[in-house]
């Protein structure tokens, strides 16, 4: 039996801050469903044709299965680094480090993409007021957005969670309303869905599935705020189980709306700022503005969601010693991992800006970053699915259902990845190479730290474990405890 400590290895983060709605908000805002609702079906429909709805239903079920696996951990341990610590507990430190760096890549790249997205949509909004949109405007806006998000996150998780939840709800409502108004008319008109894409659908179906999977990523991030949640054993698993289903419903709705008439993605300096179909009529400008506001909000919430998850993962690594210990320190007043946040945020803002200045195309930057991010998430999901039966077996609680779901989900995901890789028209090997390079760098750092920090491999995978004060041993009933 492991000794019971007097204080938690992740003390410093404040307990009991987030309600269920806010934990759910963490997961949902990291997914940024409203931005996906108006952009992704447009990307998936050409690839999947008539199978689009089916693709979203299948991936929702697959992600719900991943959620089930993650839930097995979330009902048993209060994590601060989500899938990272879960994988360590199932497959040991080696695989755990792979999952950890995958998550860091996934969250960081998602936050970077969101920062580009938010800056571009803000620029598009401002251009309506006559502000010239260009690389300079986008740079300034990205810096401002990053600074605002950083301030909110340092000021406390409750504040940032409340704001990102509100913003995301607003964004989803706007996206839904816009879709109904813009595309509802064409359905009522009884126009036949365009089936020109059907001819190529089968060849690209694997890619469509993988694309659809990437539209769910982030739902597991509730696992990174468990320490800060109220009743974490209830709220976190619930958020992780329901987010894929709720988000899946939104996507199916969005895909159904758009399958009659696809949104055209504008190609130019502004990425994926959408042009609504002519059927939207005279109100189309107002609708466009509302949608741009909603999507800006969604990107902003996604910066907060992804960076919150990223900072908690880095914080855990700091506490373990995988990265220097200073990263694991918390702010005394606000109880947030301010060093991790202060380190991460400049990188999140500056890297995509450099990328943008080099390539000159926001669209390319956004797609490139999302591709790298997707690699990280899918890698971590694969590992956590495999870790589930291993973990349950190790603690002697393995039953048939988690074994079957864990293994089957992992096999299915590998199959989809291979299928997608084989049928891919535009290769994403650059993203794969970047992900592999970053992962290798992560392992190199781990190997280096292993020599410097004695006992590091045993410390990897910290979570909010039971401490002396939580036990009912040597209990004195006649005493008031604080």
């Amino acid at each position, binding site marked *: *039996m*492991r*000794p*019971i*400590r007097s204080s938690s290895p992740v003390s410093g983060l404040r307990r*009991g801050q987030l309600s269920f709605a806010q934990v759910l908000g963490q997961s949902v805002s990291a997914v940024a469903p409203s931005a996906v609702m108006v952009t992704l079906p447009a990307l998936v429909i050409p690839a999947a044709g008539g199978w689009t709805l089916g693709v979203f239903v299948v991936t929702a079920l697959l992600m719900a299965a991943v959620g089930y696996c993650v839930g097995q951990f979330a*009902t*048993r*341990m209060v994590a601060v680094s989500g899938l990272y610590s879960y994988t360590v*507990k199932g497959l040991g430190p080696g695989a755990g480090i792979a999952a950890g760096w995958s998550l860091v890549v996934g969250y960081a790249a998602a936050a970077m993409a969101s920062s580009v997205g938010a800056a571009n949509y803000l620029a598009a909004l401002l251009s309506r007021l006559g502000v010239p949109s260009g690389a300079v405007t986008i740079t300034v806006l990205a810096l401002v957005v990053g600074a605002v998000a950083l301030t909110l996150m340092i000021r406390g998780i409750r504040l940032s969670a409340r704001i990102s939840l509100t913003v995301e709800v607003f964004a989803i409502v706007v996206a839904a309303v816009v879709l109904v108004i813009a595309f509802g008319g064409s359905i009522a008109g009884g126009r036949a869905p365009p089936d020109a894409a059907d001819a190529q659908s089968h060849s690209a179906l694997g890619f469509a599935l993988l694309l659809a999977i990437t539209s769910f990523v982030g739902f597991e991030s509730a696992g990174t705020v468990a320490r800060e949640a109220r*009743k974490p*054993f*209830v709220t976190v698993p619930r958020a992780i189980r329901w987010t894929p289903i709720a988000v899946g419903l939104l996507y199916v709705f969005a895909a159904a709306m758009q399958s009659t008439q696809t949104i055209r993605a504008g190609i130019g300096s502004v990425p994926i700022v959408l042009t609504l179909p002519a059927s939207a009529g005279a109100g189309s400008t107002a609708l466009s503005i509302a949608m741009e506001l909603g999507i800006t909000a969604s990107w902003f919430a996604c910066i907060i969601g992804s960076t919150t998850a990223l900072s908690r993962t880095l914080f855990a690594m700091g506490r373990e010693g995988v990265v220097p210990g200073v990263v694991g320190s918390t702010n005394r007043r606000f109880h947030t991992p301010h060093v991790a946040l202060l380190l991460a945020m400049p990188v999140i803002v500056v890297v995509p800006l450099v990328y943008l200045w080099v390539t000159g195309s926001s669209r390319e930057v956004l797609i490139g970053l999302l591709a790298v991010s997707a690699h990280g998430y899918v890698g971590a999901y694969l590992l956590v699915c495999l870790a589930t039966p291993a973990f349950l077996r*190790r*603690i*002697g*609680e393995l*039953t048939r*259902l988690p074994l079957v779901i864990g293994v089957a989900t992992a096999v299915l995901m590998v199959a989809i990845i291979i299928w997608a890789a084989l049928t891919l028209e535009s290769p994403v090997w650059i993203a794969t190479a970047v992900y592999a390079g970053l992962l290798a760098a992560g392992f190199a750092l781990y190997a280096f730290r292993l020599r410097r920090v004695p006992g590091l491999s045993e410390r990897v995978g910290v979570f909010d*474990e*039971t401490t002396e004060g*939580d*036990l*009912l*041993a040597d*209990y004195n*009933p*006649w*005493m*008031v*405890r*604080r």
Partner: protein
Amino acid sequence: MSPADSSLSGRQPKAVQSALRVLEEVARAGVGVTAKEIAENLSMPSATAYRLLNLLVADGYIVRLPDLSGFSLGHRMGVLIDAAVAPTVCTAAREVLAEVRLSVRFGVHLFYFTNTAVRAADLDSEFPPPVDEATLNRNLHRSAVGRLLLAEKQDLTGLAPVSEGLLQQLEAVRRNGFATQTGELREDCACVAVPVRAPAGGLVAALSMSGRSDQDVLLAKQVPALTECAKRLSPLLA
């Protein structure tokens, strides 16, 4: 969702009984018992036992140990244990109380604290306290003794309705080292209470004095004498 989670009908009583048996087994087997052992000891289907254990952990009745495979009783169980214990006061402490009672014409009472409640340990039979123990525990924020308990707590959820006024009163209790109440529990009664602390500093009991509400100034004058007496009681109660 598994079928057992959604069925709210005939299988519920069975589930409650099973949960209580699991809880009892964790208590009997001692710190570090594993889920598998519990399922075996109770001859219960393992999936059922694991699900019940996770529910009990989620509600804080039991905790998972750092190795994630062992279990132990958790703090929520403290409430049950607290309700079952009876306060006993040693002769030496009773003598101290008798001495104080001879010196004043007020009711002098000794209350013990559990983690979340007040328990009557030795009440003045000549001048009884304004309300009984159950009423007192429902009105911790209105009573002097209750305010001592609340002032000790960081989190008041479930103990008292939190208001700005109450927080200010509790801050004053912490600053002054005693609590008062005039006409708040019962219109015609006033109380003053001082804490009795264990040598390590933990709050274990309250020494209180009760009188008529028009005597509140006289009661307040008794605080130094009560504090002195609380110091004498401390080693006898801890």
